[in-house]
């Protein structure tokens, strides 16, 4: 596979969220505001790319029996970098994201890509795959948070779009809307992109 194919595969065809149903936790939790989703997405892209590269780099010297533990520790190290960076530079967003930054460690996308791709492929390919999967994930987050923020707060990236006449839908800020929106997104993609038939 060329690098371009790997990228397209990771971003669209095998998208982590709508195809593999991985990493749903954070996809639902941080999507009430677009800015939070974007920052979270960038954090995941960074972690996926760097962890994928590192795991791929040491794949020949990692004993099979302890490889899960090694992978988790590598991922955790990069997540700590992201967490410290956010705490230092964007304290407000870091507070809003709360535990979900730390939870990137147990985000199934990370372990899934490490196990399925990085532990068997070349370093640069793993980097491309990590960036692709991360962008696919961020895309879904932004799509869901766009609807939630627009209807829930009447704004986009914090800028007010709707006029004063707009009554915010408080349901969009609460948990259930995230479940419904993600389900609808998966439904639309299944029907029009994968053309699933009964």
């Amino acid at each position, binding site marked *: 596979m060329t690098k371009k194919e790997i990228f397209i595969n990771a971003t669209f065809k095998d998208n982590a969220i709508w195809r593999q149903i991985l990493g749903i936790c954070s996809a639902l939790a941080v999507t009430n505001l677009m800015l939070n989703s974007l920052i979270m997405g960038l954090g995941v892209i960074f972690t996926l790319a760097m962890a994928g590269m590192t795991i791929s780099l040491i794949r020949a010297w990692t004993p099979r029996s302890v490889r899960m533990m090694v992978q988790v520790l590598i991922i955790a190290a990069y997540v700590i970098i992201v967490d410290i960076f956010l705490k230092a530079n964007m304290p407000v967003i870091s507070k809003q994201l709360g535990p979900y930054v730390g939870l990137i460690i147990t985000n199934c996308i990370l372990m899934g890509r490490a196990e399925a791709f990085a532990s068997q492929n070349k370093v640069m390919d793993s980097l491309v795959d990590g960036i692709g999967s991360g962008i696919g994930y961020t895309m879904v987050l932004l799509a869901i948070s766009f609807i939630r923020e627009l209807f829930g707060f009447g704004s986009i990236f914090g800028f007010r779009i709707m006029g004063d006449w707009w009554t915010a839908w408080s349901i969009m800020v609460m948990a259930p809307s995230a479940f419904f929106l993600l389900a609808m997104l998966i439904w639309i993609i299944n029907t029009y992109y994968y053309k699933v*038939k009964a």
Partner: protein
Amino acid sequence: MEISAFVLFWAAIFTGNILLTYFLGMCSYLSISKEIESAFGLGIAVAFVLIVTSALNWLVYYYILIPFGIVYLQYIVFIIVIAAFVQFLELVIERYTPSLYYSLGIFLPLITVNCAILGVGLFMIIRKYSFIQTLAFSAGSGIGWLLAILMLAAIRRKLKEKMVPAGLRGAAISLIITGIMALGFIGFSGIVQIQ
């Protein structure tokens, strides 16, 4: 801000359900909810590991990480504690109760990467819970998670014979069911309230 442990326990089950409100532990929740028996097995295992590892992590955080000034290592330390405990549990169960091992053992490796376990650990640090509060919160969260996965498994069993649009089958319909359950749980929010 001192919430009594009793209130925290009920709040963690109903008003602030770890899965329906904080979305933690979704991956295994969606994939292991086809059969009630396996959902129950996984739920029990998660609840047990959750209670023990949260207590361990609390002790590690306040008696090792803070005195030595290495709080920034908390993610790595927490995940090591969880992984080590799960590994230890697997050995013990396999050695002493083989029958339990066959029904529960397959879920154990899944638990290390279940976000609910690490999530509760991080919540208790962020909200500055005392040890007793942590015990109540983790017990409530474990039971709440068990409740949620059991409900989903029961509904999915009924749903098997029903017509579901092709594109919705699998994860999507489970998400819609979960959304309706979450709506229902909002009805509890008048009883007790945490954050």
